[in-house]
């Protein structure tokens, strides 16, 4: 019996490892590691699982262990996307004074990236239908994209997107005019 247990344990050859990392923004992370009908759920920083030929099992890990095993992959991690949020003067296609300053700060950030690509995302408030706001949000994004191109950013490096009213900064009911939700995000990555 003892021999059999040893034999079974000996068969569980490690095939890999998974470690959940702390999110810098403090968001809660969850990762499910599944092998066949067996699952280990990782739900706190440095929770770890070893995958084996007989299914996953929870193991201990920590920053030093992660650096030793995954340092190469982590060192190659691209810079986190940076978000700049721009607001418009009510009813006009013109940035507020504060947002004009934010717009200017985008350029030194772009210059820091060896191969920048920029996503411009338009948002609206909740007044109107999805179809209307999808179009309006894309128009706002296109306007900012044009402004970036005029300042010398390559057109091929900028994508404009419209999220309509799906992603409000401030939650409101339907049909609410809210200046803080009429915005354009410039994401540099």
């Amino acid at each position, binding site marked *: 019996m003892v021999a059999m247990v040893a034999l079974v344990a000996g068969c569980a050859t490690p*095939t890999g490892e998974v470690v959940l*990392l702390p999110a810098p923004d403090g968001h809660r992370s969850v990762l499910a590691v599944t092998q066949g009908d067996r699952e280990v759920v990782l739900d706190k920083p440095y929770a770890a699982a070893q995958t084996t030929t007989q299914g996953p099992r929870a193991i201990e890990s920590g920053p030093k262990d992660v650096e030793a095993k995954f340092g190469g992959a982590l060192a190659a991690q691209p810079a986190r996307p940076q978000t700049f949020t721009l607001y418009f003067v009510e009813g006009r296609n013109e940035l507020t004074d504060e947002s004009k300053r934010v717009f200017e700060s985008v350029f030194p950030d772009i210059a820091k990236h060896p191969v920048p690509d920029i996503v411009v995302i338009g948002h609206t408030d909740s007044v109107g239908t999805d179809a209307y706001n999808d179009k309006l949000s894309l128009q706002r994004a296109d306007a900012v994209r044009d402004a970036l191109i005029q300042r010398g950013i390559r057109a091929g490096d900028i994508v404009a997107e419209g999220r309509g009213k799906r992603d409000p900064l401030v939650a409101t009911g339907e049909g609410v005019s809210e200046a803080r939700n009429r915005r354009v995000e410039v994401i540099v990555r």
Partner: protein
Amino acid sequence: MRRWKLALSVLMFAAGSVQAADIGQIKVSSGSVTINRGGQALQGSLGVRVQQGDVVKTGANGSVGITMSDNSLLSAGPNSVLALDQYAFDTTTNQGRFDASLAKGTLAVVSGRLAKQSPGAMTVRTPSAILGVRGTEFVVSANVGPAAH
């Protein structure tokens, strides 16, 4: 069933050949990095755009970092093989699907807009396990050796 599958794959092939959409970009590249795209080997150098189906390989001295269009960050250490198996991303609704797989080596992942919108929209596979990503940063390794039973 088989005929349907065939029709589907022909359709997908046709769509792929007409419009091979860029789904991400190589932001960090050092040492030997190659991309296998439909049987062709390309240099995985800085700034190269990646596409669905690409298999990214790093050599013994290589590493690579990719930013996907949904803001996911994938980076692989030395001696790794990373496949971008399936990718669909609706930039208006944030809905879609991202399936990647690590055949061997090491991979660090920061999930993006897809996983944030729909838990379950992103998976990372190794030869032995499936990782369901629900808004997460993690690292994963896959050993070279016996496959899972």
